[in-house]
């Protein structure tokens, strides 16, 4: 998946700020498919080991994206203590096969960001390509 530097930095910053709880949100992409805006959304679980996007924030992000001619392209969340790989609950909770699932691992010396497609229980990693744009 391709993501702008700003969106990448914003999602990582949100996850760091949310620690020790999991941070989460959605990514908006433009018609070219490049994720260009991170939308931090409240984690109603307020938990270090799980997240559920606040539905109201989810809907606002959806309508805002559509009004701007964009679409939601990915969901992101953090694993504050663990590696950025999908857990069984990440796989079970995956709802949108069209979305990338971005996980920010905060258990190492520096944040690690990885992305996956999850469809029908099958997990496929895809490269995260940061696009430098003004």
């Amino acid at each position, binding site marked *: 998946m391709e993501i702008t530097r700003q969106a990448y930095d914003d999602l990582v910053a949100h996850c760091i700020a949310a620690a020790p709880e*999991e941070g*989460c949100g*959605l990514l908006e992409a433009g018609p070219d498919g490049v994720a260009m805006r991170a939308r931090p959304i409240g984690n109603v*679980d307020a*938990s*270090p*080991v*799980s*997240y*559920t*996007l606040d*539905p*109201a924030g*989810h*809907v*606002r992000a*959806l*309508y805002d994206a559509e009004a701007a001619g964009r679409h939601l392209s990915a*969901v992101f*969340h953090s*694993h*504050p*203590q*663990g590696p950025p790989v*999908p*857990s*069984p*609950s*990440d*796989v*079970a*909770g*995956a*709802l*949108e*096969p*069209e979305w990338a*699932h971005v996980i920010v691992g905060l258990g190492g010396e520096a944040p690690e960001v990885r992305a996956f497609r999850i469809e029908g229980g099958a997990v496929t990693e895809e490269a995260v390509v940061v696009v430098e744009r003004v």
Partner: protein
Amino acid sequence: MTATVRIPTILRPAVGGDAEVEAAGSTVGEALRAVGDAHPPFASLVFERDGSLKRYLAVFVDGRDARHLRGLDTPVGPGAEILVLPAASGGAG
């Protein structure tokens, strides 16, 4: 009255693959039950046996959370948009 019901990806197989369906009803519950009457698999995924909404779902009417209105009894006007939203969740577990 007819409302537009937006169907999330995960529920689309239950309505034949459509992203939106038109449904008659004067309340959210009536409109969703109308979709369920036309597509029984949808009803079993959306409603509990007692007729309440499944806990993993939220419903928005023209962008407003029906839980903060009158729930399934929330009135819907002509051309209203009903958005069925499954909870996006997961985590390190």
